[in-house]
């Protein structure tokens, strides 16, 4: 990628075709030439397909209910039951597949909510500065002073048990928000130094307009990277909270809960498939997001671009 194309990109790209646009964007072309990032994307897409398929074709009630009498109990993986069955004779294949839906759904909500909150707070802190900045960022510092999983554990206890996985989502949203606020504040401060911001203000644009139309779009790249990397973390942490007993309610097919069952009951009896399959899917999904996020970060870093040349 030469510097000519880089500056070229700042001009209007609307009239060009998609391929040209991708080529002109140093970020996308760098990302698409990264095979590991593409592998990550492929894993994510595959998990999404499994998740949606499971949600559309499986009946949650049926796969949550005990299947004693219908299926063999604690059956090892076989042709008929590829992932085996659990202690209530439920086949693990549909449960693990449905777990993908849970991970994607709750992961998306967690990351989405903390992105919106963090981006809002970060941009406001950067734009108004002074006391606003101090109040917001010092509050974020306090939240960041806790090890994340422990803060989530403490926060989970505020919400009633009936909320199930939603209380884990609420707790983790609060835990992740400061990370976004920090990244976005930093990015927004850089954007605010540009002359076009002064020009926009001089033209009489209102504060919300400056922030939403001019500052936000120019911070999108670091926000996207942060979201992608946090997606993997969110899925692990949601499963961890379920694993510790503060997430999904009993019987629901969440990976964390299945792993908890694998440890509390499968470990001593040597029933390896209760842990193995849900954990494999969990680890793969997280790996997918980490590969993609890592590739995005490299693609954003101009120093990495130099290295490729």
């Amino acid at each position: 990628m030469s510097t000519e194309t880089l500056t070229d990109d700042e001009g209007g790209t609307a009239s060009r075709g998609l391929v040209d646009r991708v080529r002109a964007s140093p970020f996308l072309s760098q990302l698409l030439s990264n095979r590991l990032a593409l592998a990550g994307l492929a894993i994510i897409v595959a998990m999404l397909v499994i998740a949606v398929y499971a949600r559309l074709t499986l009946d949650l009630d049926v796969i949550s209910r005990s299947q004693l009498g219908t299926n063999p109990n604690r059956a090892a993986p076989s042709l008929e039951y590829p992932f085996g069955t659990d202690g209530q004779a439920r086949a693990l294949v549909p449960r693990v597949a449905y777990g993908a839906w849970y991970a994607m759904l709750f992961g998306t909500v967690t990351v989405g909510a903390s992105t919106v909150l963090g981006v809002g707070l970060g941009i406001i802190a950067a734009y108004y500065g002074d006391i606003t900045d101090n109040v917001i960022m010092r509050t974020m510092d306090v939240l960041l002073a806790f090890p994340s999983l422990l803060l989530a554990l403490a926060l989970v206890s505020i919400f009633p048990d009936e909320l199930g996985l939603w209380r884990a989502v609420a707790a983790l949203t609060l835990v992740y928000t400061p990370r976004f606020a920090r990244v976005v504040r930093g990015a927004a401060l850089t954007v605010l130094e540009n002359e076009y911001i002064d020009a926009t203000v001089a033209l009489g644009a209102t504060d919300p307009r400056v922030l939403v139309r001019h500052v936000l779009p120019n911070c999108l790249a670091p926000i996207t990277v942060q979201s992608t990397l946090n997606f993997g973390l969110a899925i692990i942490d949601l499963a961890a909270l379920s694993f510790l007993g503060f997430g999904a309610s009993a019987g629901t097919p969440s990976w964390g809960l299945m792993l908890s069952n694998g440890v509390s009951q499968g470990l001593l009896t040597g029933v390896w498939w209760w842990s193995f399959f849900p954990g494999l899917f969990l680890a793969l999904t997280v790996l997918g997001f980490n590969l993609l996020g890592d590739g995005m970060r490299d693609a954003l870093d101009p120093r990495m671009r130099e290295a490729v040349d």
Partner: protein
Amino acid sequence: MFPKRFVLKRLLLLVPVLIGVATLVFSILHLSPGDPALTIAGERASQEFVERIRADLGLNDPIWVQYVDFLGNVVRFDFGESYVINRNTTVREIMANTLPVTLELALYGQLFGILFGIPLGVLSAVKQDTLTDHTTRVGALAGISVPIFWSGPLLILLFAQVLGVLPTSGRISSTFSVSPIRVTGMVTIDTLLAGEWDMFKSAVRHMLLPSLVIGVYSMALISRMMRSSMLEVVRQDYMRTARAKGQGAKITVLKHGFRNALIPVVTIIGIQFGGLLGGAVLTETVFAIGGIGTLLVEAIEVGDYPIVQGTVLTFAFLFTLVNLVVDITYSYLDPRIQQ
């Protein structure tokens, strides 16, 4: 020169954060559902009894009085007595028994991470864009993607159940009826100090799998940081100067590159200490180790608020302290930071 002013400034900046941390914990517990007085008294207790406990706990005082009392107690590191788990025992005493267990686990994990992470990172950087580099990088990403509550059970199943070579749970073999003299509370150190060779071996064997599981995560993070920091340093002018003066490539990398590249790695060691503490909670659960992590989980389940307060605050203080030490070390290694 020791950066006195810098340390003082950092210490002062810490005060508001710590007050904020205490305030947050206070709010969380006051927002939590459930009546502590009822938890202590039990469901069938008489109304008067519950009222008396409530008065004893100061729950009838105005909220700001409770808040000031709480802050005063936090400063004295006094979290009261456990409600449910270990009645009539102070939280301080309970934590004195469990904290060393968790710290021991975290320290071994950290040690594992540093011992393997740094060489792997250097190797990856020196062999940039070769197969070794790619394998190490993917391995590191896989390391941070694999949850402890998956790798733990699988390792237990493999080493303990299938191969039968390592113990699955606890801290020391149950055949040792007497516990070693308590000095640090860390079983591997205490047994060694006592000169109990067999007990020491048993303790180390119990520690192997948990430290491996928890250490893989820090190893992955450290090796990633080491690699990118090393790659950056290699491009610096002083590296070129050293080479131009006729110094050999290996010596330049080790003498000028490695030492400077270590500086940012110190930071990541501090940052991931929080992850290590969170990881300890999960590792303790998987390996049935009675540390502060399992204590916290149990305390939240049964509503033992003094323990929740004590443990969460201690974890936050520890994490903050580690980061302070890291900042100071960093400024010592790289005096430009103090500006």
